[in-house]
């Protein structure tokens, strides 16, 4: 089985194509507005003349490297290349501002590789039992898992818990704009037909993170410049030490496991994985107050998880013919174009698909570290450009990203979100919490509505109807109440 996979990756000119896929995927991922799905879609053009197995090898390489590439601009410019890299900005950008861009990128790449390799192995060994388990998830369980992602609200900014929850709720409300996901009735559009399809996430994300940052820098005395990421004209690519990486071994392990499991769930994917793992690590950390100030644990959590989700997403695709996410759906359509019948029989009749995907993921995740460092160096050089040129270029990249996702309305939403980011700052609200609400809002409502129907309108059964949902929802409630409970626990301890 391995032999067929190895020949699929290294045979003929396939290896060169894998290298090309890694370069393209990393660059696509790093460019704002070119999501992992779009990267895979762009890669489709290269696969028209390929046989099915090399085609999936090529597309898997693009998929994995694009998720990693998203971290480069998230760290250097606070522009998440892909939505799943949004939590990477929380600690990556402060590190870049403190002159540790190289270390931040090094951690992101290494952790991406660890997460990707872990999930590849899990995919290879546990493909069949894992997808059967995922299929057994009820709508209530899926709601519980999505809600788990929302529980990060309690840890995003512990000093302003009320305003953080307000921000999360605002994000959830933004996700309600447009047609409701089940009945298709229009809500909160205020008569604007262009809002019928809802608010595109990417323009809001780019506006709140990138445009707001440029606006803030406009009136700031000290701007992000050469001395932040570069020394004496050379890129500061000082990598993290072995000791530093060893210190976050458990972070990587936990996030690899959780990221892979979330990746397997249909409709979940890399974005939920990275947000959930960031929240989880913040909770488990001995120094939660340092999260968001520029520590490697935060980057490790986000990047390990989103890459682990890539392997997870391949499990239902290969074993059941169900795409775990949008990028997997594009890959599935590419294979369908070549006449490959996806479904449970695929792996029985053509096991080379699983081994080729596995070997491709392993090779990609290893080579990606080296290749992405080279690409990151080129991107980091951009920091040496004076801000009077760099700032407007960032705005232009943001504009292109927003336009490609949402057209003219997308650009207008990006500008509004950029201005909103300034208002958010003055109101002590939290941009990341707004994004989190927006990302998870529709999914949360959809899963809840379906579970509500299936449980005959019994909310208790929706929340606690199965052991999985009961455990996950209880954990969420504890996480959300923890800021209120913590002072009480401290008080009780003192009294003892």
């Amino acid at each position: 089985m391995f032999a067929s996979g190895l020949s699929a990756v290294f045979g003929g000119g396939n290896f060169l194509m894998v290298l090309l896929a890694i370069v393209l995927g990393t660059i696509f991922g790093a460019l704002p507005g070119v999501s992992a799905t779009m990267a895979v879609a762009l890669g489709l053009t290269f696969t028209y003349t390929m046989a099915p197995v090399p085609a999936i090898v090529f597309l898997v390489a693009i998929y994995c490297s694009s998720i990693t590439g998203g971290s480069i601009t998230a760290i250097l410019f606070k522009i998440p290349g892909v939505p799943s890299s949004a939590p990477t900005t929380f600690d990556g950008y402060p590190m870049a501002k403190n002159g540790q861009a190289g270390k931040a990128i090094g951690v992101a790449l290494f952790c991406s590789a660890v997460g990707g390799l872990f999930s590849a192995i899990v995919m290879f060994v546990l493909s069949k039992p894992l997808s059967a388990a995922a299929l057994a998830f009820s709508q209530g369980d899926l709601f519980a898992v999505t809600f788990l992602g929302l529980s990060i609200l309690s840890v995003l900014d512990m000093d302003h818990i009320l305003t953080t929850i307000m921000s999360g709720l605002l994000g959830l409300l933004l996700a309600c704009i447009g047609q409701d996901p089940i009945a298709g009735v229009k809500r909160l559009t205020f008569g604007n037909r262009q809002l019928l399809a809802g608010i595109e996430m990417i323009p809001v994300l780019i506006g709140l993170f990138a445009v707001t940052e440029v606006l803030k820098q406009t009136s700031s005395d000290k701007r992000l410049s050469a001395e932040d990421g570069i020394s004496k004209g050379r890129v500061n690519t000082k990598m993290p030490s072995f000791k530093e990486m060893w210190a976050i071994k458990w972070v990587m392990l936990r996030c690899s496991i959780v990221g892979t499991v979330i990746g397997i769930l249909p409709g979940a994917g890399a974005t939920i994985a990275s947000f959930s793992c960031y929240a989880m690590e913040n909770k488990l950390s001995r120094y939660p107050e340092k999260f968001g100030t520029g520590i490697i644990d935060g980057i490790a959590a986000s990047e390990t998880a989103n890459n682990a989700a890539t392997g997870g997403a391949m499990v239902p695709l290969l074993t059941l013919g169900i795409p775990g996410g949008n990028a997997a759906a594009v890959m599935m359509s590419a294979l369908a174009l070549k006449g490959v019948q996806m479904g449970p029989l695929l792996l029985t009749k053509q096991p080379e698909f699983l081994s080729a995907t596995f070997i491709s993921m392993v090779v990609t995740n290893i080579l990606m570290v080296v290749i992405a460092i080279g690409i990151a160096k080129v991107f980091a050089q951009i920091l040496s450009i004076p801000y009077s040129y760099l700032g407007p270029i960032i705005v232009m990249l943001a504009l292109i990203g927003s336009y490609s996702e949402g057209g003219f309305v997308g650009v207008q939403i990006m500008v509004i979100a950029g201005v909103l980011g300034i208002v958010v700052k003055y109101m002590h609200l939290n941009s990341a919490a707004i994004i989190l609400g927006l990302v998870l809002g529709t999914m949360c409502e959809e899963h809840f509505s379906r579970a509500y129907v299936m449980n005959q309108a019994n909310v208790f059964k929706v929340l606690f109807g199965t052991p999985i949902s009961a455990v996950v929802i209880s954990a969420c409630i504890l996480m959300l109440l923890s800021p209120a409970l913590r002072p009480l626990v401290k008080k009780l301890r003192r009294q003892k």
Partner: protein
Amino acid sequence: MFELFANIFLLVFLVYAYFTHVLEAAVSKSYMKNPSNLMPDVWPKVIIALLVICIVINIIKIFRKNKGNPKFTFKAFYQGSLAFFKSKTFLGILILVIASLILEPLGFIVTSFFILFCYGLLLGEKKIWRLLLISVGVSFLLHIIFSGLLDVTLPRGTVGFLRDFALMLENLF
């Protein structure tokens, strides 16, 4: 004071939205038939209700926090607002708003040049000729990379000659 006004504005807006815009069309009869179906207005109404509670608590907190603060006055708010409208941040916002409005009629190249040049000036670039050349160069480079190489469709503009120019550029690559 700004924080207080923003919270009050948000509160009023949410109450208005709750009563008028949560449902903007009738729910179909077939959907209504099943009593187990979750009505489309429930989810946003629950969110708005929770938000209103949070905002009210926040307003109380703002009052408590600023009790006795000499800067917590209408006069200070007025002066702060005036200062904002004279700031570089406001000019930056203005450039972005104009850019988002001219993007459709004038297309990508002109908008890109406008942003790169005007924002460059705002950020204090003194070498005008260099800025002018770089703005033109970067606009074309971005067009070539995204439209020519990555197949991302960029706005061509509705003004005849600008549209023709954009089409010519696309055909070149």
